[in-house]
């Protein structure tokens, strides 16, 4: 819905928010999880919050969700602060945690009805949601017997029970197989088409962010490094190309280009050198000359347009997928 001036309404506003935690038992040592974050999510916008582990994503989401209170700054959801509006705001927010276990001996339908009762919803709403998240076959299954994907579908179903204005999904597909992941995406894409729900999604999958979200926020060490639509970010950063190459008969290492004018990194996972060039036509001959002067020869040279993943690497120094592989 647009406001009177024709602009989209903001549903979440985060203003200069700080949050730190005590590190260990020493009261003197603290970790700043979120440092002066400003953020605005508009009505109907699907936003992805990308960042490595410990970047402050969950803390930020928990503050938006009202579970944590900021040390400083202000968070407004649909223009309201959490204090004094808890009941009201809980009614318009849907939430799915990365990993939630439900009451083992309640079945899918009973679980949905229980959560539905918290919102004072009609019992039929549970049936609607069962269809929405495609759990009809598992309606009478105890939650303990559900697979990871089915459990995550149920979690999303619970998040959708109240037809939320705002949906917060914390890594909804982590640990799921590709099929289950695509099924979850399909549910969320349908939601995007049918309702005017705003979404904040934290994820470790760049593909997921690109498929589902029209707004990307890259957060690292408690600070937002970049934000914008996928197109904006790519245009802003990619007035050039990404190159990848290996060298013939050379034991690759990080030091070859140290001290040169080239900002070239050794990517261990790909076993290739990688770099971003703004102007290939002028910069590439210089690179080739440099390599020639070292008596080396290039093999497997590739150049391509930059991706969000490249942007993420250039900002945080690591692949987003690395988080997943480590987990």
């Amino acid at each position, binding site marked *: 819905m647009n406001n009177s001036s024709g602009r989209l309404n903001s549903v979440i506003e985060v203003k200069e928010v700080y949050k730190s935690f005590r590190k260990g038992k020493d009261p003197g040592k603290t970790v700043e999880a979120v440092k002066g974050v400003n953020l605005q999510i508009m009505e109907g916008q699907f936003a992805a919050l990308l960042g490595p582990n410990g970047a402050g994503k969950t803390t930020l989401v928990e503050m938006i969700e009202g*579970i944590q209170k900021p040390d400083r700054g202000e968070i407004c959801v649909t223009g309201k602060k959490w204090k004094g509006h808890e009941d009201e705001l*809980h009614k318009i927010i849907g939430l799915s945690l990365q990993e*939630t276990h439900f009451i*083992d001996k309640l079945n899918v339908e009973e679980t949905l009805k*229980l959560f539905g*009762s*918290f919102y*004072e919803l009609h019992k039929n709403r549970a049936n609607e949601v069962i269809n929405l998240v495609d759990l009809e076959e598992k309606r009478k299954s105890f939650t303990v017997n559900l697979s990871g994907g089915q459990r995550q579908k149920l979690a999303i179903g619970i998040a959708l029970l109240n037809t939320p204005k705002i949906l917060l999904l914390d890594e909804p597909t982590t640990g799921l197989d590709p099929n289950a992941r695509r099924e979850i995406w399909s549910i969320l894409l349908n939601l995007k088409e049918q309702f005017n729900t705003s979404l904040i999604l934290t994820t470790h999958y760049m593909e997921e962010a690109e498929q589902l979200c029209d707004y990307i926020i890259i957060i690292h060490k408690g600070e937002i490094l970049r934000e914008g639509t996928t197109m904006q970010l790519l245009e802003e950063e990619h007035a050039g190309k990404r190159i990848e190459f290996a060298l013939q008969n050379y034991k690759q290492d990080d030091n070859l280009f140290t001290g040169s004018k080239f900002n070239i990194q050794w990517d261990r996972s790909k076993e290739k050198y990688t770099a971003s060039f703004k102007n290939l036509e002028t910069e590439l001959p210089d690179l080739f000359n440099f390599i020639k002067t070292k008596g080396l020869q290039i093999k497997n040279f590739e150049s391509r347009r930059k991706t969000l993943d490249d942007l993420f690497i250039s900002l945080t120094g690591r692949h987003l997928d690395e988080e997943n592989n480590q987990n």
Partner: protein
Amino acid sequence: MKKIIRTRQFSALLNSHAKEILRQPAVLFWGILFPLLMTLGLGIAFTQSRDIIRKVAVIGNDSGQEAGSFKFLKFMREKTQKIKALDKKHNGYQLTVKDEKLGTSVYIFEETTWSEAAILLKRGEINLIIEDSSEDIKYHFDPVNPEGLITYLNISLIINSKRSAEDTQHEKIEPLTLQGTRYIDFFVPGLLSMGIMMSSVWGLGYNIIEKRSRKLLRRMIATPMKKSHFLISLMTIRTAMNFIEGGLLFIFAYLVFGIIIQGSVLALLFIFIAGNIAFAGVAVFTASRTANTEVGNGLINAVTTPMIVLSGIFFSYQNFPDWAVSFIRLLPLSLLADGVRAIFIEGAGLREIAVPFLVLLATGIVCFSIGLKIFKWH
């Protein structure tokens, strides 16, 4: 306007908690079947009709007295032809007295020391201690314990019927205090009380910790669910389960062992509710912070195990040192077990249980309030 009770929400919570319990066979086993089996086993062990064996500890008044040298036993050996020596493992004698109407009574006299006799007494293995000195035979027993009294009277009768002019030992009674008459009468009220504690602290406390560790609490509070509804519904369903468990146990004990409630049923209901509130409070307090089930396990054991041991569930805590007894009797489980036992055995009414009722209620309210104050929902 905000409703104080959201009926649908509350009844849905009650419904889900009930299903959660009823669909776990292990919970039903430990909550219902296990106490019944325990009552059956112990009841059979202690109440079956057979030859009545009465063990008596015989001790000397000085430590230098050698085994077999007790004057009392010499007297019995000389004057009673039916007395036989026990096997080599045991120092003592066995006397069998047959009576057509009363059945056969077997008296086993074991030579022992005061400390061993005290342990046997604590274990309920003996009801009478005979202290043998050159001048006196002292009978140590609990005068309100019929077993002790009968054993004393019978032995005294045997001795006096065999006495001659030259037997100069005088008989003296030294009363002991030990609660409980029939063991099952003593045990069932204790078991009922222990059931309330275990069911509340484990069923409620562990349930909360587990839901926290699985992030279910965190998920639930991200909805408009009233936090108080969650805890009160858990407590309500647990009290209802305790009522069913306790009721079944009583019916079973009544039918099989003839256990009756001599006192006020209303008083029993009051102390039952107070006990539930007390232990629900203890459970909420115990489970208020941790999200680790292992830690929770330890915490709950740390709370319950000492009370099981100390609070006189299986045997009277009166045998603990005096300084300890004054502390033990204030433990929630002791208050509850003593109250329930007083109603069952001593015919107590509302007035007699007023103090434990109030203390239990206060314990529950204080623990619940502190627990809620420091409660960690995520």
